[in-house]
């Protein structure tokens, strides 16, 4: 066997791949479910916090900043472990799936709040004044004038964060979530062959490339001629 053949036999072993493909596919479904839940709840909560922060209620803003800094500073794995192994002591037990979802959604919430907030504050003061001078309320101005401009600015950094944090679903293996990486590594130890890991990598590509493309599209859609 040539070196090349040995390489292919090790990393792209047809028999092993065929055997574990169903496992990888079911792992993909779990990863997709997790990712969709994390993105929707994480970004939703992040936007909600940024909007609340724009009301400029001091004690509330201190609380928001504290929460946001906390979840930006903590490693996601630590949060997952705390929720999964720690909360049962407070009579709150979550499955590995829910623990992973909650943890990563909290982290995405924290990062996206900062991004949304930066977008909101970067909109020129004159936009607020023009809108308020025509009689629009604070909320109407925020929703109709400021937020559309802020969101456009936030799409690129938001996409990066969202992808980075969604990839963190792989951390779910620690609490026995059978997502892509979990399936791939158990297949790897059962078959004594790393081919399933390559399939896992391919699965991530298949999952995230469309997300990147979609984000580009969104960026273009929200752009306006200057």
């Amino acid at each position, binding site marked *: 066997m040539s070196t090349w053949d040995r390489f292919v036999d090790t990393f792209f072993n047809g028999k092993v791949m065929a055997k574990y493909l169903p496992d990888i596919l079911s792992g993909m479904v779990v990863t997709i479910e997790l990712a969709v839940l994390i993105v929707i709840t994480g970004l939703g909560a992040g936007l909600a916090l940024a909007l609340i922060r724009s009301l400029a209620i001091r004690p509330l803003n201190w609380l928001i900043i504290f929460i946001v800094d906390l979840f930006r500073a903590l490693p996601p794995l630590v949060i997952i472990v705390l929720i999964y192994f720690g909360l049962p002591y407070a009579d709150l037990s979550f499955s590995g799936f829910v623990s992973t979802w909650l943890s990563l959604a909290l982290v995405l919430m924290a990062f996206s709040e900062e991004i949304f907030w930066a977008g909101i504050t970067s909109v020129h003061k004159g936009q607020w004044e*023009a*809108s308020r001078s*025509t009689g629009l309320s604070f909320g109407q101005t925020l929703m109709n004038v400021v937020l559309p401009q802020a969101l456009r600015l936030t799409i690129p950094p938001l996409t990066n964060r969202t992808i980075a944090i969604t990839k963190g679903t792989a951390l779910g293996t620690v609490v026995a979530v059978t997502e892509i990486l979990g399936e791939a590594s158990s297949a790897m130890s059962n078959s004594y062959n790393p081919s399933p890991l390559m399939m896992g990598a391919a699965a991530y590509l298949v999952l995230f490339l469309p997300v990147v493309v979609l984000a580009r599209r969104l960026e273009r859609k929200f752009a306006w001629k200057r």
Partner: protein
Amino acid sequence: MATPSIVDARAIHKHFGALHVLKGVDLKVAERELVFVIGPSGSGKSTLLRCLNRLEEPSSGSIVVDGIDMLDPRTDINHARQRIGMVFQSFNLYPHMTALGNVTLALRKVAGKSRAEADRLGRAALERVGLADRSEHTPGQLSGGQQQRVAIARSIALEPRVMLFDEPTSALDPELVGSVLEVMRSLRMSGMTMIVVSHEMGFARNAADRVVFMDDGLIVEQGAPAEIFEHPAHDRTRAFIGQIQRH
């Protein structure tokens, strides 16, 4: 004058921290009057204008516009602001909307018009500023002069009782100033009450009913344009007008 004043501001004081920007300003404006406010930068003229629709909160004093006590906490400020149009130095058009979108936003959200009705009123307002054919353009596709005219349309679409102009031509290239002044002149002809902060002395001379000279947070003197420009009573006014006219 027997005509009732539509704007009646009394003893307006404004502090920014330790800075005392307005030191007790009284300003009465009659219906259909065009009042020009001039003065060196930092004299408080823009701040005074911004106090009138409460974009700036006066530290003390009273402001009544069209019978509405602007400083009364019970006043619905968003409702009151519909009656007071404001045009800014930097236009402040919404860059993500078309010209028509800019003009119709408040019509729909504040005046409660249907989209069709708002579009109709919006197009009429754009027509009045000579931009009927630009309704689908975004601000980025318009020249500065056109943007400022859209901004004027955005205000007049709400049929305000008073219009405030805060240095409306200061950010424009010289060749674009004329088109904006032209729109202001036609507004005046239609009987709009206007308070204008500007350095366009030529316009002040032939369009204003009254010129108010401010310096250091106070109104130094006021009167008919010819009077202020030809025979200012105060040295400070004379010095300011001399400086402006040398350019």
